[in-house]
């Protein structure tokens, strides 16, 4: 009996371009995708359960293992939640240091995104150029806190150590020659017709639909919605730093590429401003050795490179949290994949996974 049946194919969980252990059940009609169903949970380590059985100092060690590409942003949002529970403020110098490190981590995270996104679409050299830049940033982060990826850099009430001498000099050196490198990526990709062909009008999503899906970060701003937590609800010292929030117009993969490139330039400007305005002074406030915040709850939101990082902490007066919920932006962004992928070709789902910039540790927690 002759008949055509849709080809069911498994993308992942062992697949070079799923940015981690993600499995997407694809239903193909020829080359076009009829239906896709992402399956997650392969990297679930129960960070929230650990959060409820470890005290506030120890749980921070687990936060940078969730979104291992934007470690300092995860540490920062968790520590801010603990500080708001305790009612403690970090001294101004520490706040500026946090902004500098968070923005460096954002650039590093965007570089990993650009590297893997370009490699999935075939531009091998961009992958290696991006990692060369990221290497310099990781050396800076290692110079400060001692680890490249699992940073554990922020402490409740400020920062444990000040910048080592010579650190600001090399940070400034990086910021000086970074624009030249960005221009190289642009000449290689931005106006390249093959790149345009592979990213224009792929995975288009309108502003309202993006908000309905709860998309945040570059994916939302590429659809034209102006929501950046650093501007909407400024934390640390972002209110004292002027920077620009790039928005897209069409909301396709090409816009998300342009928005993230522009964000890297803005992050560099933020770092330069923060380094100038950073006052001298202590880096740590008086904080009790055993952190026992008063009973209550708090939901703190930061702008991570992938979107809105949220921590919901409920404390019952003891030194371990009653409920510790990590809202992960990639978990929400990945949910939009089936709608974005419908009707595109198999090669596009690779570009779509790249443009959503998902990190499986952040999704599965």
């Amino acid at each position, binding site marked *: 009996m002759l008949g055509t049946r849709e080809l069911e194919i498994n993308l992942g969980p062992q697949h070079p371009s799923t940015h981690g252990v993600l499995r997407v059940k694809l239903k193909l009609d020829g080359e076009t995708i009829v239906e896709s169903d992402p399956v997650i949970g392969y990297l679930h380590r129960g960070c929230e359960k650990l959060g409820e059985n*470890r005290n506030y*100092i*120890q*749980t921070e*060690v*687990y936060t940078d*293992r969730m979104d291992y590409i934007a470690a300092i942003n995860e540490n920062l949002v968790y520590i801010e939640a603990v500080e708001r529970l305790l009612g403690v403020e970090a001294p101004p110098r520490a706040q500026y240091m946090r902004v500098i490190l968070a923005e460096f981590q954002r650039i590093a995270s965007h570089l990993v995104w650009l590297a893997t996104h370009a490699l999935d679409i075939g531009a091998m*050299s961009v992958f290696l*150029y991006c990692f*060369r830049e990221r*290497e310099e940033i990781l*050396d800076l982060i*290692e*110079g*400060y*806190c*001692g*680890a490249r990826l*699992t940073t*554990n850099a922020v402490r409740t009430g400020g920062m*444990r*150590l000040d910048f*080592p001498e010579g650190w600001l000099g090399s940070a400034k050196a990086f910021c000086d020659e970074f624009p030249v490198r960005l221009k*190289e990526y642009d*000449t*290689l*990709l*931005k*106006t*390249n*017709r093959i790149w*345009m062909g592979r990213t224009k009008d792929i995975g288009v999503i309108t502003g309202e639909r993006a908000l309905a899906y709860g998309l945040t970060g570059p994916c939302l701003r590429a659809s*034209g919605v*102006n929501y950046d937590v650093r*501007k909407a609800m400024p934390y640390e010292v972002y209110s004292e730093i002027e920077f*620009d*929030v*790039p*928005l*897209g*117009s*069409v909301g396709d993969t*090409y*816009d998300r590429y*342009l*928005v993230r490139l*522009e964000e890297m330039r803005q992050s560099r400007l933020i770092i330069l401003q923060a380094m100038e305005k950073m006052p001298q002074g202590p880096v740590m406030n008086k904080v009790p050795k055993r952190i026992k915040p008063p009973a209550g709850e708090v939901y703190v939101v930061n702008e991570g490179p992938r979107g809105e990082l949220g921590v919901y902490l409920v404390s019952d007066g003891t030194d371990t949290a009653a409920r510790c919920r990590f809202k992960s932006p990639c978990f929400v962004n990945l949910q939009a994949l089936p709608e974005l992928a419908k009707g595109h070709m198999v090669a596009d789902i690779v570009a779509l996974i790249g443009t959503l910039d998902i990190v499986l540790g952040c999704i599965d927690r």
Partner: protein
Amino acid sequence: MSVVQRPELSFWKKIFLVELFQGMAVTFTHWWRKPTTEQYPRERPKILPRFRGIPKLQDHADVPGILCIACNQCSIICPDDCITVHGEPRTEGKGKQAKLFILDYERCCLCGLCEEVCPTSPVPAIFMSHEYELARYKRVDLMNDMKELYDPQPTKEYLK
């Protein structure tokens, strides 16, 4: 907030593939730039002073005997419960010192909290060393007791 502008290829650029050649020029110029990779086993990476390798024990000249005072602060703070310490009265001077100190490398996540909370005076007894070659052939080697925690792990020179 500024809307990013989407460049359009002009007709002539499309015909004469200008931007493709620009792209090729970028890779061409990279040809003779100095390569940034290091040949790992022969060239050793430069370790920055604050690098957090595997925790190790250390002693200090002005404190006789074992520096660690077996106060168990590190084993309390450790998120993965890797450290077990048993104390004994100090041989010289008063107070306690560590009789048995087991650190389980297998579970250690190099977070550096133990070095922070260690209260010993001149230098923290347990400190984050600069060793990063942590592979062992047998799981049993990962449970290090005091003797192994003191001597730096020999880095065989890969001369091949």
